[in-house]
Structures are given as structure tokens and as C-alpha cells.
């Protein structure tokens, strides 16, 4: 019974996604059933659409920058929370994790309002800082969870053997922490790459990400092009964690 029900939940969860993938190969003019053959026509058409390619490039650059910045901010903060005792620790930890609990619409409005008050135009930088705020809590949670499991004694041993704090971090803490840092970056990248709720507030016609572009295209109807774009996105974002897992295993076993 339980097994059957679980199976049904899976079917329910994945049917729409599979439908997107199947329909993207439908040569018919409308992005809907029935299938009338199999063709890559819509993918070819996508690859000739320069605004979509631009959006892709934007999304990739934005996601990578967000991942780097978020981890650069998040890792030291996680170190502070796990390795040190200081006043107001609990409060500050909650504050840094707060963006998860604040509705994304409000985050979108707030940052846009602030930028408007500063009389700055919407720009790539706005998207970047916005995405860093969105992803920082996740980096913090992931790195903190891992850091708790790394014994403080290793670092203390290195320090007592004469390493300076920077060397200690480079030689001891960082290698032990690397999987979590990597996971944090991956998570930030995906959140940034997929985000649409807040990004719609911050994006402009010149600075579009792929989801924002899809949103714009959707206003007409679900065209087969959207399905094809969706398929590309699904393959890209789903293969990232698998590829990352595979690569990290290879590196781990390679040496």
C-alpha cells in the first residue's frame, strides 16, 4: 500500500517534467499533444535565437559570480560561528539565516526600493548582490554543518606545531572543509540559475536570466520553444550535481 502510494507520488511529480522533455521533440507548431514525429527543429531554432543565448550567458556568469562571492562571505562567517564564542552569537546567526525566512517577494521589493532611492539603475550588479543575499544562508548552513564535524584538535595541533593561522586554514581546515564549500557553491549556483521570484524585480531587458526570459516568452502561450528551452535547462541543472559527484569521486580515488 505504502509502496504503491509512494510510486504514485513519484509518477505525479515527474510526469509534468517528462512531458516537457517529450514535447520539446514534437515538430508540431503548438507545444502540446499529440506527438507528430520526432525532431530537433526547436532546439536548432533556439540556438539561433540571440536573446536566449545572451540570457544563457548572463545566467552562467551570474551563477558563477554568486557562487564565488557567497562562499567567500559564508565560509569565514561559518568559521566564526563554530570556532569562537562571542556575545550576540545566536542573534547574529539568526540574522544571517533570516533571508530564508523572509518571503522572496519582499526581498525583491526591498532591494529594488533601496537601489531606486540611491538613484542607481537596475544593473548586473543589482542581480549579483541580490543573489548573494538569497544564497548566503544556504552556504552558511551547509558549511556550518560540516565544520561541526571537523575536530578542533586538528587545527590546534597545527598551530602548536608552529603553523600560523593562515597556513592552518590552508593546510588543515580547507581540505577537510572542501566538500562542503563545493556543495555550497553548487547550491548557490543552482539557486541563482533558477531563481525567478525575486529576479523578476531586479532584471531588465538587457540583463535577463534564462528563467526571466522564459517568463517573458510565456506571456503569449506555451510554445514548443519554451519546452525545448525547458529541456535544456533541466538537462543542465540536473546533470550538474551528478557530474560534480562523479568528478569529486574521481579526484578522490585518482590520487
Amino acid at each position, binding site marked *: 500500500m*505504502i*509502496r504503491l502510494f*509512494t510510486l504514485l*507520488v*513519484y509518477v505525479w*511529480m515527474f510526469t*509534468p*517534467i517528462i*512531458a*516537457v522533455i517529450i*514535447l520539446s521533440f514534437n515538430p508540431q507548431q*503548438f507545444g*502540446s*499533444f*499529440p506527438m507528430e514525429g520526432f525532431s530537433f527543429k526547436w532546439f536548432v531554432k533556439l540556438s539561433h535565437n540571440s536573446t536566449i543565448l545572451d540570457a544563457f550567458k548572463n545566467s552562467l556568469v551570474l551563477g558563477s559570480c554568486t557562487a564565488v562571492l557567497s562562499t*567567500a*562571505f*559564508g565560509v*569565514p*562567517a561559518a*568559521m*566564526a560561528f563554530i*570556532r*569562537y564564542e*562571542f556575545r550576540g552569537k545566536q542573534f*547574529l546567526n539568526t*540574522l*544571517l539565516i*533570516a533571508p530564508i525566512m*523572509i*518571503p522572496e*517577494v519582499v*526581498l525583491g*521589493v*526591498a*532591494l529594488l*526600493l533601496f537601489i531606486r532611492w540611491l538613484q542607481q539603475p537596475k544593473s548586473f550588479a543589482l542581480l549579483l548582490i*541580490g543573489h548573494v*543575499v538569497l544564497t548566503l544562508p544556504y552556504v552558511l*548552513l551547509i558549511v556550518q*554543518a560540516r565544520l561541526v564535524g571537523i575536530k578542533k584538535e586538528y587545527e590546534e595541533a597545527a598551530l602548536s606545531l608552529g603553523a600560523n593561522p593562515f597556513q592552518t586554514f590552508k593546510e588543515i581546515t580547507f581540505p577537510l572543509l572542501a566538500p*562542503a564549500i563545493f556543495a555550497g557553491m553548487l547550491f548557490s549556483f*543552482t539557486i541563482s540559475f*533558477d531563481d*525567478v*521570484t525575486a529576479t523578476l*524585480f531586479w532584471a531588465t531587458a538587457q540583463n535577463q536570466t*534564462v*528563467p526571466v526570459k*522564459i*517568463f517573458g516568452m*510565456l506571456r503569449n502561450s*506555451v510554445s514548443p520553444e*519554451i*519546452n525545448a528551452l*525547458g529541456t535544456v*535547462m*533541466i538537462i543542465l*541543472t*540536473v546533470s550538474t550535481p551528478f557530474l560534480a559527484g562523479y568528478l569529486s569521486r574521481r579526484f578522490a580515488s585518482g590520487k
Partner: protein
Amino acid sequence: MKDKSWKPWVLLSPSLTAIFFLLVIPICFVIVYSFWLRAPSGADIPAFQFGNYAKFFDDFFYPSILLSTLRVAFETVILCLVFGYIPAYFFYKTRSRFKPFLMLLVMLPFWISFIIRTLSWINILGDSGLINHLLLKFHVISSPLAMLYNEGAVIMGLLQYLLPFMILNIYVSLDGIDKSLTEAAKSLGCTEWQAFKEVTLPLSLPGVSAGCLLVFVLTCGTYLPPMILGGPGNEMIANLIFKRIIGTLDWPFGSAISVLLMVLLMVIVYTYNRYMGINQIFKTLSNES
């Protein structure tokens, strides 16, 4: 021993500065703006008055959207609970060697774009979508059923988005339960069902309530499913904010609605934290990677 009390602050300063300037101050701006006036010309005039809030509660239009948001959020929580608990329980019980793979599949939607998952329902529920196509083909119906652009379709989209959060929260809680407890209950004469009801279910409640809170909060703050899958009558509070800010550029009123939404969710999160502790949610979120 040297005084090292400045060290954590050095490590914290980049993220604290970022959060202070990019989150705390902007949110203060939203609060300040919510008291401003909007000139007929569309300009914003600094002021301190409650007109924007009064406007919200003036007639029944805006409060009814607030109420329907809460209703939809409540329905989504209940459905997520039913459709989430059983798979989570299955993962807890199963000894299948496919378990890691099945767990991975549950996480997979996290990696798939929200907008694509939302619009994918059009391919299923639309007039020429999968369900209507199959029903027409087998002559069950003679004209397509209208399944899109209503509350049901919106809830489908929300469920698709939020179910993985619920399943993981419940699973993390179930996974922490010592299995010998149910064995003990059964050896003392409990049936399978009684052991579940008296031991497993109560012990999984922290995960259940964390999942419910997360689903509720996320539902209240989203506008895409109603926009893409809903009709004109299915707008939620976040849609109002989006329309005011992006559509009519009415910053003061949009800010006031944002403040109302924030206060509402803060009351809910605070009450929850008071009784359940918020850490359960963070525990699960950090396990998701």
C-alpha cells in the same frame, strides 16, 4: 592567553556588512515607504500616515485576497502533509538497495527550475494537455475539460514546488527515531498500527511541523503559480505586491502590502519558534545538499 575576542568579528564582517546593507537597511526602507503618500502624478511624497494601510482594509477586495492566500496556503500544507508523510515513511521503512537512488529522485526537483516545473502543468492540464488528450482519444469525453486557470491548478503547481521540502523534513525526523523503540512496542503487544500511532508518529512531529511551517511560509511568498496556472480570481498576496511594484509603480502601497505580509509571517514564525524551536528547519535545510 592572548585576547582573541576581535577575531570572530573579522571573519564575520564581510557577511554582516552585506546583510546589513543589502537586507536590514532595504527592509527598513520598505517600512518607511509604506507610510509615504503617492501623488496623483505618480511621484512619492515623504509623509507619515496610515493611508496605505487604511486603503488595504478599506473595502473587502484586498482582505479577501489575504484570506484566500491563507486558505490556499492551508490547503497546500494539508495536501503536502498527506502526500509527503507516506513517501517519507516509506524511505524510513524500506531496506531496498534502491533507497539512495529514490532519495536522489526526491531531491531532483530542487535542481529543476521553478518556472519550468510550474509551466509544465500546462502540458498536463491544458485543453490539449496530456489528460484531455488521453480522455478525448479514448472517447471518455467529447470536449476538453477546463482544468487550468483555477485554484486546483494553482495548488498542483504549489504542491509540485513544495512537496520535496515536506518529504525531506519528515524523513530527517523519522530517520532520527531509534528503531528499537517500535520493536519494543511491538514486543509488548502493540500491533503495527498501534506502534506507529503511539511511538513513530509522535516522535516524527518535529519534522512534520517544521515541514508545515516551511510550506506555509513559502506558499505565502510566491506569485508564480497563481500567475501562470491561476485565473483572475486566484491571485494571492504576493501577486498584489508584484502588480503594485512592477505594474503600476505604486511604491508606497506596494510597500505597505509587503509590510503586512512580513508581519503576518513573522507572527506565524514567532509563534512556531515559541512552541517548537526553529532549529529543526535549519537542520533539514543543511542536510539537503
